């Protein structure tokens, strides 16, 4: 079953849903990157919760006009309207009052959602509302999806993705360096508005498959995952699109392969699995790499400090330093230097002196700024320069040349 699902052999509807989920995943991954880089990831949470009253209002209006309240296109238009209203409230509260953005987000998401719930209970009391199935939009549901819905989602996902790719350059610029972007003539507010409009589009189109509570995950998890693998903004959004698309595709396929596997949660958990792998295993920013680096770094610092203390016959206050020196055969357990310890210590001290001289040279300011206590001086100056520096200091005894 899984294999058939992954190769899109589970029928027309399932195939459209899978492709639609993939397109939404890519679009969400890419637009989410710009939110993430602007450090506004959770604004999407306010937007998505603010869709609920729109869904309810659209249903009531469509029924009042004598139509079918369940028309997906109508519901999505309604949800987009209140999502925009919610976003406007967040902006207004942040700019016009002293409240911080996190409070504004939390207030808007809970109040709009609460009002949406009120509307849902109103609908439940309406004649035509009993089987409205609007609560399916809370968590997403692909069961009983109409063909027209599936087409709407696939086309909507494709259009959103196309617009995202089209506008990516200004969005990258603004996310990466807003001041520079403004200086080079970009209208920041317009670009931010476009970003938010795309986030809204992704949210609205994702409602049916992923549901409004979980769509946030598709906007946040892929960019965060991608960030572990690269420091280059361009690569972040590309990779994020891949992670989002993969999660959407695999998640939707897995969920189509068996009953009782809700699409939205499976997609979210797929992306979370990718995130967890990245968190631990990414080569540079991953946790394992960072821990390893930190241990080595701490060792270098303590060793170097220990050597400098030995060279100046200062007491060493830290047990770890003494232990390291001992393990390296540079000192005895009581902190007295061995022969090789003395030699290394003298070299360390001489290097400190060399840095000191270097720092006082007026034309070497940039080089001297590289000093951090650990960097070998030989790596920043040429042999000739080193000789010049050495000429300025008296050679201490006992340094092997």
């Amino acid at each position, binding site marked *: 079953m899984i294999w058939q699902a992954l190769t899109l052999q589970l029928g027309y509807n399932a195939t459209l849903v899978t492709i639609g989920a993939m397109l939404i995943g890519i679009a969400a991954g890419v637009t989410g990157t710009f939110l993430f880089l602007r450090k506004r990831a959770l604004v999407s949470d306010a937007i998505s919760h603010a869709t609920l009253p729109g869904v309810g209002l659209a249903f009531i209006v469509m029924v009042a006009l004598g139509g079918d309240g369940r028309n997906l296109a109508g519901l999505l238009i309604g949800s987009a309207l209140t999502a925009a209203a919610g976003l406007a409230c967040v902006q207004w509260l942040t700019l016009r009052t*002293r409240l911080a953005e996190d409070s504004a987000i939390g207030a808007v998401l809970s109040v709009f959602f609460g009002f949406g719930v009120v509307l849902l209970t109103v609908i439940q009391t309406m004649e035509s509302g009993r089987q409205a199935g609007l609560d399916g939009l809370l968590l997403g549901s692909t069961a009983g999806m109409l063909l027209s819905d599936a087409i709407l989602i696939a086309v909507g996902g494709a259009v959103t993705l196309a617009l995202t790719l089209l506008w990516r350059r200004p969005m990258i610029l603004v996310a990466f360096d807003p001041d520079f972007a403004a200086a080079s003539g970009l209208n920041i507010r317009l670009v931010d508005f476009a970003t938010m409009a795309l986030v809204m589009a992704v949210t609205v189109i994702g409602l049916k498959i992923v549901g409004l509570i979980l769509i946030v995950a598709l906007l946040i998890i892929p960019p965060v995952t991608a960030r572990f693998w690269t420091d280059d903004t361009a690569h972040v959004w590309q990779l994020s699109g891949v992670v989002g698309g993969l999660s959407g595709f695999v998640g939707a396929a897995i969920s189509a392969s068996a009953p009782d596997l809700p699409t939205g949660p499976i997609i979210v958990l797929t992306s979370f699995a990718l995130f967890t792998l990245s968190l631990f295993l990414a080569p540079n920013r991953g946790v394992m790499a960072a821990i390893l680096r930190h241990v080595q*770094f701490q060792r270098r*610092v*303590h060793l170097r400090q220990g050597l400098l203390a030995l060279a100046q016959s200062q007491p060493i206050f830290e047990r770890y330093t003494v232990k390291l020196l001992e393990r390296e055969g540079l000192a005895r357990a009581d902190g007295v230097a061995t022969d090789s310890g003395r030699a290394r210590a003298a070299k360390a001290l001489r290097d400190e002196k060399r840095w*000191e001289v270097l*720092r*006082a040279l007026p034309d070497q300011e940039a080089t001297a700024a590289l000093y*951090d*206590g650990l960097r070998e001086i030989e790596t920043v100056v040429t042999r000739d320069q080193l000789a010049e520096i050495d000429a300025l200091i008296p050679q201490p005894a006992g340094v092997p040349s």
Partner: protein
Amino acid sequence: MAPVTLVAENGQTEPENLDHSPLAIRGMTVSYGQKPVVFSVDATIQEGSMTAIIGPNGAGKSTLLKAALGILRPLSGHVSVFGRPLATQRHRIAYVPQRASVDWDFPTTVLDVVLMGLSRELGLVGWIKGHHKSRAIECLTRVGMEDFADRQIGQLSGGQQQRVFLARALAQGADLYLLDEPFAGVDAATEKAIIAVLKTLKEQGKTVVAVHHDLATVADYFDRVFLLNTRKIAEGTVAEAFTAKTLNAAYGGRLATAQIDQLTLTG
């Protein structure tokens, strides 16, 4: 640890007085990520002195102070306060953070901030009584802010905020005062008022340490300097440690020689 004699890097020996120093730092290294911003620094603050910690931007001045106070966790280092572990001596320390480090929009008044300096004495649930308030007002008077006691702190100017911070430190009644950039972004009148208060503290035998960035006023305001640029460059009286040679070593080409001559000549 047995008392030992330290050999300073310039070859001079100075008596080891960890036992008496209000703040003694040994082998302090602090890093952000993989880059040490303070490397293997020793410092011995003299009791009753007014010491300026100076050095170029990014030299690790504030970082050293914060690590010494346990606000940042150093990679290595040993700190003693009045010869004892920091944890047992906190009541003798008053710390004035950088003004920009707090949220001035916080819903509180000037008097309230000064009363925070008394919280050790008040304990968890002690009531604030009249004599606490009058002491807080007295501290505000010493910095010339008594008329602002009921103001919301967000309504103050930068200089006024700095004075309130100093008043809070005074309320603590400490023996060692540590100030992080107390003159950053304040008006001339405030600078004068703050330095007058600090000099009074010194006359009372208290110890004052301030991160400072204006080289022109070092010699007027302080009697000792601690020159830092990732490593300790120099430490001593203004005459000893605030010289053309040490400044050049700390600031490199950033200060023109003429400037340095002027600074050290006037000092």
